[in-house]
């Protein structure tokens, strides 16, 4: 892939795209709500943006986006470094299922909450390490290496729960998904996502790590010759992605107070890749935009909330999602960029 002036300009503005997408979705929703204002009473004009206070807690579609979008933001934080280093992690959905299964099973078996949570995150980190070894040490193509865990991982999760859906009652684990601190009216998942974003951004942009990541993604061999420890950095991205997926899995399990090894985290790998790519991180590697990835995660949830608001079933919902994802990939492809540049500056 050749560098071009267009890449530099889009690099700085890329975080705008998810915002534009969300604005479009909100406008669509408001328009639909207004058109249906004469109909059933629930759909007044501006129903999508309406925020009410239920039991002292704000509620409404926009609050839902922030609350449930937190999972996508967390996954995107893990996926962005992986993709920036020219990899991809298809196993995040399965790692979510494994982490939820570990936490639920240990909690049911009478372990302390802190031990269950630590074990779930530890196992998720091990899953990430497994991917890291396959990619970094054995040198497999990232999508093949993580595909193994994507399919086999669901089997692992089923083994952990003995092919059952394990329900649990554990105040501390439920707090991760459903809780709200007393001093702030914000849900815990959102606070976790914000903290994770701030932490990741700080480490990546305030140390040389971000530069090294993009160098490795831009040209692994050249960075290695220049003295960058490419393999170690690539391995680190997979472990971090595993931990993020583990955290997301805990939230998903806590949300339903159960670990579902069959459906937990399904389709999440595509959602995470979408969030990262729409936020301006290149699938070809070497270019990362963390803020864009976080906003992309919110855009993903905005898309899903819109589908629910428009009565599109959860089984059919991946169809428009996949089409939007393809559209974003196409818009970011070299040919589409070339075409756009030719339109902007007619020769």
């Amino acid at each position, binding site marked *: 892939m050749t560098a071009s002036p267009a890449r530099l300009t889009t690099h700085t503005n890329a975080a705008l795209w998810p915002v534009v997408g969300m604005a479009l979705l909100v406008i669509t929703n408001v328009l639909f709500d207004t058109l249906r204002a004469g109909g059933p009473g629930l759909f007044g004009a501006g129903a999508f943006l309406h925020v009410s206070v239920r039991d002292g807690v704000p509620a409404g579609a926009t609050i839902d986006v922030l609350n449930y979008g937190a999972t996508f933001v967390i996954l995107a934080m893990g996926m962005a470094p992986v993709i920036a280093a020219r990899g991809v992690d298809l196993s995040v959905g399965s790692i979510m299922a494994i982490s939820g299964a570990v936490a639920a099973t240990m909690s049911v078996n009478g372990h302390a909450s802190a031990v269950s949570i630590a074990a779930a995150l530890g196992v998720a980190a091990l899953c990430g390490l497994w991917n890291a070894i396959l990619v970094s040490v054995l040198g497999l193509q990232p999508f093949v290496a993580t595909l193994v865990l994507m399919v086999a991982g669901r089997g*692992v999760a089923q083994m952990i729960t003995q092919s059952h859906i394990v329900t649990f009652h554990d105040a501390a684990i439920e707090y991760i998904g459903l809780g709200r601190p007393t001093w702030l009216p914000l849900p815990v998942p959102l606070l976790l996502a914000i903290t994770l974003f701030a932490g990741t951004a700080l480490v990546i942009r305030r140390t040389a790590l971000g530069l090294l990541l993009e160098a490795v993604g831009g040209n692994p061999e050249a960075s290695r010759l220049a003295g960058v420890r490419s393999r170690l950095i690539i391995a680190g991205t997979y472990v971090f992605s595993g931990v993020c997926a583990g955290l997301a899995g805990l939230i998903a399990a806590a949300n339903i107070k159960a670990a579902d090894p069959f459906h937990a985290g399904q389709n999440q790998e595509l959602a995470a890749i979408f969030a990262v790519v729409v936020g301006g991180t290149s699938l070809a590697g070497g270019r990362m935009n963390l803020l864009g990835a976080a906003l992309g995660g919110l855009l993903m949830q905005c898309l899903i909330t819109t589908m629910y608001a428009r009565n599109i079933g959860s089984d059919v919902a991946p169809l428009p999602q996949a089409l939007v994802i393809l559209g974003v990939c196409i818009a970011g492809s070299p040919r589409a960029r070339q075409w756009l540049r030719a339109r902007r500056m007619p020769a």
Partner: protein
Amino acid sequence: MRVPFSSRHLPMLTAGAILVALLVFGGLRYDHFASLANVFNLLGDYSYVGIAGVGATFVVLSGGIDLSVGSMIAFTAVLMADLVARGWHPLSAALVCLVACTFMGAAMGWLICFFALPAFMVTLAGMFAIRAACFLVREQSVGIDHPFFAWTARHLELDLGGGAVLPMRSLLLLATVAAGVVVARSTGFGRNVYAIGGHERSARMMGVPVVATRIRVHALAGLCSSLAGLVFTMYKQSGDPTSAVGLELSVIASVVIGGTLLSGGVGSVQGTLLGVLILGVIRLLIDFQGNVNAAWTSISIGLLLLVFICLQRLIVSIGNRASQQVLPARKP
């Protein structure tokens, strides 16, 4: 990437040895395991994996990947069941399914080539989109009840004597594999696929129509997946939008275990048949054992896939070293 001639056949020979070893192991451990009827049952039960595997072999040979296999099979099953329930004749419904899936495969191939997108990304999006499209056709499983299906089940089979009967689906599998072998070995299209998989830029410079070939490869994969879906529908006698989830890994695993390099350019269609049989025997062993968690199936497939990928990397790196000894690599 150079692979010396002797080690080129090593993965397939290994696969054959593993198949024999598994059969001997099962035969010694369980009664009635290593019977001819059992092997023919395998050919029937995993015929849809094998048929889809033929298309996937071409995709992998060309250096690409197709993750949409499972969704295509489910889509064919659901569309078939829906059309038959609406009063169509199964044959015309089958034709519609084949054309639709071939077109979807070609469309994915076009996206990959025209916009230079990664194949796994496009086919992953395709996998989700086509799965969702299944639910758009029918939200629930639909049974198929048509005299034609009963007729094919009764009349189209090959009696080999001794209680061994080859049902139509295994005949279809053998026919597809035979056609695949012929296309891969003795047509210009097959040679182009090997050339692109071996080294795309060299192939382009030699005048191989890269874009057209890639699109045709993905169209072929769609066609094979759809054919597999038809066999699957005949086997299950119903169309279920949640069926064949995760089948793409089984298909890719059988391609890889059969000796086709994931980096493209090396491999064979007949090897994929071996790979399918190995997967089938492993599942049969798990079934015979009885008290093993069913989750072991997907785990064992994943591990076996991993072992064979590592074996491939070893062979390729040995091959590269060997070719460097003959012709020392020039320093730039």
